[in-house]
Each structure stands twice: as structure tokens, then as C-alpha cells.
């Protein structure tokens, strides 16, 4: 069977579900963050596939922006995790139950 737009979209959906499962089931902040990255990448794949099959480069520019924003987002998020670890000595969501540090 030839790989069409729908094939790429199905792969994207499955990858997104894996990322979502990681966010819901894992308890480590860093692994939850990796699940988020997986979801972002799945969305990127869908965008690139749409861009390719619609003969329109705007989708790829969007992915370019997404990757850059994701890099900034990862650096800020990891900095927050490091700051949190300094205060509480844990990166486990079940140990982080209070709003006040």
C-alpha cells in the first residue's frame, strides 16, 4: 500500500497517544516533560505531512517556529525543575503537593 497522507496522520495520532500516556502515567517530572516533547513532535509530523500533500510550504514554516519555541520552552521548563529540586530535593509529582515552597 502506498504511503499517503492518512498513513502519516495515523502515525502522528499513535505517537501523540504515546506521549499523552507518558504524561498521564509517569510520575517523574522529567519523563512527563519527555512525553510533552513526544506530543509536540507528533503534531510536527502531522503539519509536515499536510504541508507536503497540499503543496504548501506554510506548514513547514510553522514547524520551524514550533521547534524553536519548543527549544525555548524546554530550557525554561528544565530551569524551573532545577530550581524546584533545589528547594524540595525531589522531581516526583507526588511529593509536590503544596502551592507554597
Amino acid at each position, binding site marked *: 500500500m502506498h504511503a499517503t497522507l492518512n498513513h502519516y496522520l*495515523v502515525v502522528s495520532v499513535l505517537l501523540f497517544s*504515546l506521549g499523552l*500516556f507518558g504524561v*498521564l*502515567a509517569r510520575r517523574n517530572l*522529567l*519523563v512527563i516533560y519527555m512525553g510533552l*516533547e513526544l506530543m509536540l513532535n507528533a503534531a510536527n509530523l502531522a503539519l509536515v505531512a499536510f504541508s507536503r500533500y497540499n503543496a504548501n510550504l506554510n506548514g513547514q514554516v510553522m514547524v520551524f517556529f514550533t521547534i524553536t519555541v*519548543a527549544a525555548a520552552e524546554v530550557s525554561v521548563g528544565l530551569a524551573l525543575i532545577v530550581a524546584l529540586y533545589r528547594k524540595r530535593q525531589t522531581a516526583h509529582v507526588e511529593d509536590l503537593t503544596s502551592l507554597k515552597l
Partner: protein
Amino acid sequence: MPDLTDLLFYGFSGLALFFGFLCVANPLSRSPVTSAMFLVLTIVSLAGLFTLLHAFFLAAIQVLVYAGAVMVLFLFVIMLLDLKEEERRRFRRFTVGAGVIAVGVIAGLLLQTVLKAVPYSPNTTVLAVGATRPLGVILFTQYLLPFELLSLLLLVAVVGVILLTKKELK
């Protein structure tokens, strides 16, 4: 008879899904380092899929920025935090069950939408080719303002990260 592109598509997507699964739910290891390494492999497989979609520039960016810079940052933070304890904690049956149900519902909805969609037959003679040159042209003409704003965003992120990771917050 499937041709080489299709075989590569099935190969890369299978690898991406397999490594993605090992990243979030590795049955053998709880260690965040293992997850990070499998995430790198997932990202590289996705770069292969981008190449199959003729998005050459994005495939290069994916490997350089994601598999290179972002994942190195992840590994640095994992090493910095010294998360020995994580490996001893088990999955809790309730969370996994709830996760499977929630993910199953959302994945089912999305898959149903994708599969029920009218089979889209694109004009296969004009497909987008994301080589560096056409992408650069569109980036520096139509998307010039967002591009410049992006540099501002990166600057803000740099300043914010330095402020957040200082030893004592004033």
C-alpha cells in the same frame, strides 16, 4: 509491490512508535536516562520521516536542534538532579489504568476522524519540497516579523533561565 519509499515509511514509522513506547513505558528500566536516549532515537526516526516527506531542512533542524541541543540539555539536567530514587518506584495500577482509558478514548476519536475522512487524492505532480532555499525565501519575506519576534523570545528565554537557576532568588 511496494517501492522503496513505502518500505522506508513503514520502517521509520515502526521505529518511531517502538522507540516512543520504550521512552514512556519501558518495562525494563525506570531510569530517566533510558527514556531520554529512546526519545533521541524517536526524534531521529521522525527526522527520517521528514526526509521521506521531502522536508530536508526540517529533518536537519530536527537532528541538530532536537536530538542535539534539547536532548543534551535534558541529559545534563538528569545528571544534575541525581534521581536514584525514581528507579525504585513502581507504576501504580490505578494511574496506568486511568491513563490507558483516557488515551484510548482520545486516540480512538482521532483515529476515527482520520480514517473516516474523505480519501484525499492530492495532485501528485505538485508536491511541496521543503528544501532550504524555498523555505528560506518564504521565511524572510512572508514570515519576517514572526521570525524576528522569535529571536526576541529566545533572548527572553535565556534571561529567564539564568534568573531561575541562580542559587538564591532575591
